[in-house]
């Protein structure tokens, strides 16, 4: 996060503290980013492995969970949503959940379709 905004937020808003003590304000250390990237890479490897290894009934839920985890890791850490003003989260997640809601419902109606 930029210096300006940090000062500014602190000055006029005063709620930038939710970053957690281990992170310097809004950001993370380079090391931290690399760690995240490594985790992401590992999950991706695991995802791809489902293509080769049979996970049985766990296959679909496992894939979806991994997808969601990766998604939120990038959003939370790389996009700083976890450390940033809550308002950003509201705006973004409103769109995200709305999208999931309406589209899952719409796709659902294709299955409720009874002859």
């Amino acid at each position: 996060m930029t210096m300006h905004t940090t000062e500014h937020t602190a000055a006029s808003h005063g709620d930038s503290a939710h970053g957690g003590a281990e992170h310097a304000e809004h950001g993370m250390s380079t090391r931290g980013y690399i760690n995240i990237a490594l985790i992401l890479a590992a999950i991706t490897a695991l995802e791809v492995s489902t293509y080769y290894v049979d996970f049985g009934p766990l296959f679909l839920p496992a894939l979806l969970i991994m997808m969601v985890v990766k998604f939120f890791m990038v959003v939370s850490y790389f996009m700083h949503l976890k450390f940033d003003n809550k308002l950003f989260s509201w705006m973004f997640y409103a769109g995200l959940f709305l999208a999931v809601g309406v589209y899952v419902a719409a796709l659902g109606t294709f299955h409720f379709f009874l002859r």
Partner: protein
Amino acid sequence: MAIIERPAPGTTLVPALAPSAPAITPARTFGALRRPVATTGWKSWLFTVDHKKLGLMYGATALFFFIIGGLEAVLIRLQLAAPEGKVLNADLYNQMFTMHATTMVFLFVMPMAAGFANYFLPLQIGARDVAFPRINAFGFWCLLAGGIVVNLAWFFGGAADGGWFMYAPNSGPVFSPSHGVDFWALGLQIAGIASLTGAINLIVTVLNMRAPGMTLMKMPIFTWMITVVQFLLLFAVPVITVALFLLTFQRSFDAKFFDVAAGADPLLWQHLFWIFGHPEVYILVLPSFGIISEVLPVFSRKPLFGYPFVVFSGAAIGFVGWGVWAHHMFASGLGPVSVAVFSLATMAIAVPTGVKIINWTLTMWGGKLVFTTAMKFAVGLIILFTIGGLSGVTHSVAPSDTQQTDTYYIVAHFHYVLFGGAIFGIFSGFYYWWPKMFGKMLNERLGSWNFWLMVIGMNLTFGPMHILGLQGQPRRMYQWTEARAGEGFFNLGFWNLIASIGSIILTLGVLFFLINIVVTARSKVRAPLDPWNARSLEWMTSNPPKEHNFDSIPHVNHLDEFFHRKYEEDPTTHTMREVATAEQVLAELEKNADAHIHMPSPSYWPIVLAAGMPVVALGVIYSIPVAIVGGLIMLYAIYGWALEPATAPAIDHDESSSNGHNGHAVGASHG
């Protein structure tokens, strides 16, 4: 990057850049053009980024399209006045109702609301402009370009003819062989950009640029409703964008999306359209709800009853509105489970809407009601919208809707909510805010004619449609036949004729409004500063407002701040007593005027960027190389835009350095 704009309006000197890079603004903007600086003359309109000018431009464009859409409606009614009508042939008729609806919905009500929002939202929250003034200008030009593209089809072999919801596969290349649907899809796509950018712009403006002290729950209700609408737009526009892309890809590039032979499911289009379409109807009506929620308190001399309830019900309507789209598909064959769910969800939406009706009525209750034209339209809205809303509830009962859907009973419903809701609100806004926008009051006598003709005309036009529909007359029929008209009091012939006569009266009503505009423009009488004894911030400035809106940004302590500066409550009798005139309040503001007010500078790029879009659209329809040319125009504009600071340096202004801050790049102040 393109979206960097001046962060806050009227920001004064901000030495934001590192000293190492002082002169980031070339005296010439990128490319060949020196940036425009005119504040009067036609250039000042073409290149303006002033939210008030843009608001007026939105309004004028919308009014123009209202007349077009209205004339289309009148042709429809002439055709249907008698059985086997011969005014239009089947093909033209189908184009007519498609374009009537498209024009009214996308090119009149939406831009009109955008116009009011643009003009008054910054004023109501005590801001000097919107957050991104150039994007604002860009939005307007997109709307205009989109409107032109949609209508261009009339001259290129026929307009769109699939009905405004353009169900697939009837909108496909074989079933609608003219280019009308292509123009329609691409034009709406362009107009959609206006809505999307506008939404982002206004939400940021509302969240970030309120005057000090104006908490969210002190915001004027109009601002609130506009904010809800912008969220609806923000999330609804991309959905129709997807639908329109699929349609265009199918029509222009042979994609299969709605090709049943390839296994496509036509219900996909219906879902996409109505996921957008239902929020859309609230997009159309909520601004008007906002307007009359301003007007009713002013002319009842009483605050809005249950302000928080009205705010939250608006938000609730916005939210629940996302879960009901399939009520337009009760007959589409969704299966009983989906139908039941959507039926119940639809009923739920009547509750928050009812809250509004109740609160408006209670606002009037115990007030001191002054029946100006603005107030008449507001009260008219309460009644007429309720009628429309209640017929909406009868549709929400899915089994009954299977008898009603696609009949005139639906046409009656949505004209009551649209005309009696959206349009009455807009007219209320015209009369209420005209003095603010133009410094002159619309004539109240003509206004009264305008109002009564519209009330009578509207009920005569759309009232009988309830009967027509329940008697089984389907909509979208270019002719109806005597053979099935029945006889006696409720025969279709009589009521169709009444509806057509009504539409002429309605046209007269609208004509009175147009006459009123002309009469007012010619009149020399200036409006007083505070003609209505108003309550909110937009009245705390001159009529019309100065370019920078407020000499000094007011501190807000109350909902209805302006009223509370004028009146105080007598602690013993609880009646209100005037403590200051509007003039005094204003003088106070002027006394504390800000020393340095720097407004964003005009720019060429918004209009250039928007101008590229119709070129792309025509290219997609007729020849790809043309589309590439359009793309290049847009790229050039983006390039120029990205390098142009939001505010010109003083040396670009005629009155050079009058503000005394050379060397400071205000527009780039963002930190």
